[in-house]
């Protein structure tokens, strides 16, 4: 097959532009003349790697978030249990759940605190 030189290619393009009809033959002819485009040889592999590696990465991230959620729930439940135990023990020791009993001040009155602080 003899390839066309640049001026022949130009002539072909210009003459083909005069028609609004079927250009399938023109595109095929241009390809035969070497006007063809393609990506690098490993293009398909690169695309597949990008897609499927990203999927693996995303699923790993999802797994991590899931385990983080489970850990958070366990820590939160342990915390709630500890608070309940604390409340029960305060109630048993102080006999009430007032603010003073939380602060351990259930036995002292305001006057006692004032006299303790002022020394009178």
């Amino acid at each position: 097959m003899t390839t066309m030189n640049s001026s022949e290619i130009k002539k072909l393009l210009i003459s083909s532009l005069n028609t609004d009809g079927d250009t399938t033959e023109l595109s095929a002819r241009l390809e035969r003349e070497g006007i063809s485009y393609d990506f690098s040889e490993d293009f398909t592999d690169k695309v597949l790697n990008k897609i499927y590696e990203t999927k693996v990465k995303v699923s790993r991230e999802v797994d991590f978030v899931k385990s983080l959620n489970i850990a958070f729930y366990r820590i939160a439940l342990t915390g709630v249990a500890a608070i309940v135990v604390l409340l029960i023990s305060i109630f048993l020791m102080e006999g009430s759940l007032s603010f003073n009993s939380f602060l351990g001040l259930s036995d002292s009155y305001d006057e006692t605190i004032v006299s303790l602080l002022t020394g009178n």
Partner: protein
Amino acid sequence: MIKESYSAVEENELVRAALGGDKQAFGEIVTRYRKMVARTVKSMLGDSVFAEDIGQEVFIKLYYSLPEFRGEAKLSTYIQRIAVNLTLNEIKRRKRFFSMFSQKGNNEMYEFEVADQDTQEQREATEIVNKALKEMDPKFSIIITMRMLQGYSTKETAEILDLPIGTVLSRLSRAQDQLKKILEKL
């Protein structure tokens, strides 16, 4: 069952298999349409690493939008639409970048590394087409790419570019005039 080769498998079946997570089936789709995408992307952006990146992006986008593909249009038309949109977006992005950061002309936006062709004549032929297309307004050069390089009919071009046929015809006529002038100058 793992299929040895998908080369003879119908398009719809390939899409179904790819949707089911079959890597090999999607690989076959990429192999079938890579040249078509390359013609659109490289003729508009030049033969560069960036064009290769856009080409990859086209197929990655296709992969994630496959669940939305209902098979009303041909798969090739669907892929071509993605390729055209991403290419035109890239051209806009480059124009913005170059207008902000560079005093150089439009020609600097494109990197042509015409290579891998067998003969000097073939390289020259590709260069002529690339140079002519890059001198044109993208809205005209995309029409020329679709009609001349891809061989689509006016109706198919309108469908891919999501334009009325009348608009495609008027742009085609103006594109032809532009290209003729440019080719005569080259």
